[in-house]
């Protein structure tokens, strides 16, 4: 593997993990759309700071753009608070306005510098290794690796330090407030972190993919676990898997790396969505099917118990007549009988069904409830 390939994958992994960690909290707070808004609305901040610093990775640019991100959140929430505009509409109004200011600034003043619309929307990971960090003539590696690495450390530090506070404020903001944990402060702390992360990732992966990196892995992990700490770890792992597999997908088909990573994010989500052990679509369908058979079996044993030992029992428990008595489809009735026979709830005696002791107690239990 070439060094550039390795570096691109490393940048992709670090970026993916840095996005996935705060993304977990956005998903749990039902605020993933806010990341979409921030990722677009920071554009004017980036452009203005770029005019001042003439560099795409200066710390000042990151701070200015992150400030615009937090401002977006403030705008959206102010609009919402008027109660004249709903949350989704408030987001839909705010970020295109800010984004378009950025677009106009670029097209009017930045025609001849490296700040084109393709790079803004999709980013270009393939070029990320070209921009090197050199100190005293030593080549220390790609700048974006350092930028994203720093942001990842910031994210990790924030979450490890305030794990308990973030959890409480996300789960029950009013209890957090009564206990003195200032949920508003935590909210804006998190939003600042998200903004900084998006600005940092923006250069490498553009404004569209960054949303996939923030929303995709946490939404996938959410289907796989019941614990917040595991959801954080799983999100980081899934983000890394998406990044690396996306890179090789792009390599194979010679397409945009960012686009391929976004595609892998969707594919992995789809896979887990179908196959997750408890919450996946297949597991749910199986559970429903089993419940349907179990319920039908219960109906059958109750029917048999009700007529057991009575004069009409012979008529009521004849296998051939069951579907008529229970108004079931004949094939379905046949299948239920087989299911109950397999579970030893009933025995077949010539043309009759007879309850076993197990079937009898099952019916009694169901009737008591």
């Amino acid at each position, binding site marked *: 593997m070439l060094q550039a390939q390795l570096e691109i994958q490393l940048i992709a992994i670090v970026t993916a993990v840095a996005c996935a960690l705060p993304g977990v909290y956005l998903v749990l707070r039902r605020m993933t759309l806010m990341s979409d808004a921030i990722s677009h609305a920071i554009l004017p901040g980036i452009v203005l700071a770029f005019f001042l610093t003439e560099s795409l990775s200066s710390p000042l640019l990151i701070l200015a753009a992150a400030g615009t991100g937090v401002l977006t959140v403030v705008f959206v929430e102010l609009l919402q608070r008027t109660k004249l505009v709903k949350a989704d509409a408030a987001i839909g109004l705010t970020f295109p306005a800010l984004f378009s200011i950025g677009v106009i600034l670029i097209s009017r003043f930045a025609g001849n510098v490296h700040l084109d619309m393709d790079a803004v929307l999709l980013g270009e990971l393939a070029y990320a290794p070209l921009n090197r960090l050199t100190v005293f003539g030593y080549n220390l590696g790609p700048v974006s690796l350092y930028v994203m690495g720093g942001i990842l450390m910031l994210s990790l530090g924030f979450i490890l330090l*305030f794990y*308990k506070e973030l959890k409480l404020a*996300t*789960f029950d903001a009013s209890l957090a407030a*009564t*206990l003195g944990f200032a949920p508003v402060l935590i909210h804006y702390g998190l939003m600042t972190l998200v903004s900084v992360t998006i600005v940092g990732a923006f250069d490498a992966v553009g404004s569209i993919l960054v949303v996939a990196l923030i929303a995709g892995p946490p939404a996938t992990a959410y289907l796989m676990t019941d614990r917040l700490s595991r959801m954080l770890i799983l999100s980081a792992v899934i983000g890394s898997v998406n990044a690396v597999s996306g890179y090789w997908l792009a390599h194979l088909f010679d397409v945009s790396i960012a686009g391929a990573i976004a595609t892998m994010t969707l594919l992995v989500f789809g896979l887990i969505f179908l196959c997750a052990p408890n919450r996946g679509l297949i597991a749910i369908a199986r559970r429903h099917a089993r419940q349907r058979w179990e319920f039908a079996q219960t109906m059958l044993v109750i029917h048999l118990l009700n007529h057991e030992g009575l004069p009409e029992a012979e008529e009521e428990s004849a296998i051939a007549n069951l579907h008529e008595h229970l108004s079931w489809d004949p094939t379905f009735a046949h299948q239920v009988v087989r299911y109950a026979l397999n579970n030893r709830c009933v025995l077949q005696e010539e043309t009759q069904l007879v309850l076993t002791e197990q079937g009898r107690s099952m019916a009694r239990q169901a009737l008591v409830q």
Partner: protein
Amino acid sequence: MQVLETKAIEVTDLTVAYQDKPVLWDIDLDVPPGVLLSIVGPNGAGKTTLIKAILGLVRPAAGNVLIYDKPYEMQRRIVGYVPQRGTVDWDFPTNVLDVVMMGRYGALGWIRRPGRQEREQAMYALEKVGMEAYTTRQISQLSGGQQQRVFLARALVQDATVYLMDEPFQGVDATTERAIVTLLQELRANGKTVVVVHHDLQTVEDYFDWVMLLNIRRIASGPVAEIFTPENLRETYGGRVAFMKE
């Protein structure tokens, strides 16, 4: 001369408004220590808002709240809060024990993590509410009554002196309701003050010893035997009450 007694909760001239629409008008309420008080009134009477105002969750337009003679901000440690069950997302990835331990977060303060001591306190509180068999259960798998018990356990581990509960009986079965009442009466017997937003007029006299009748303004408050009269109820509910005292 009258001796000034310490009050567990003292609300004076409290007005809360959303924009210019008053939700609570000039409320005065004195709650002596060691009573079990229910706040009763029709929908939209401001019962939840009153609890939230006492806890500083909504900003009053006027008036003052004291808990044992001091503002709430200085008394957080001694106040336990049970919010309405529907205010949180029960699909949140966490389990029963973890939610109960959240009640200890206030005593832990910023950054410090819960440890073995908090775990033991949470286990003890779960035993108190009969939920010790559910410690590792994911909270989305609980029934309504079980969720309510978990919330109560979370308030119990706060080991507060004053408890404020918003509709703890909402949507729970008869067994849970009885268990909760027993628990509330046990708290009072231990000298705690418990304030409960309550909906069911039929049970007020059985469950509580004090009552506050509220409909935007305070109609009356005091011992149930004195206050819970047909006249006061009619005034509170505007004649729409089907309940008749025998």
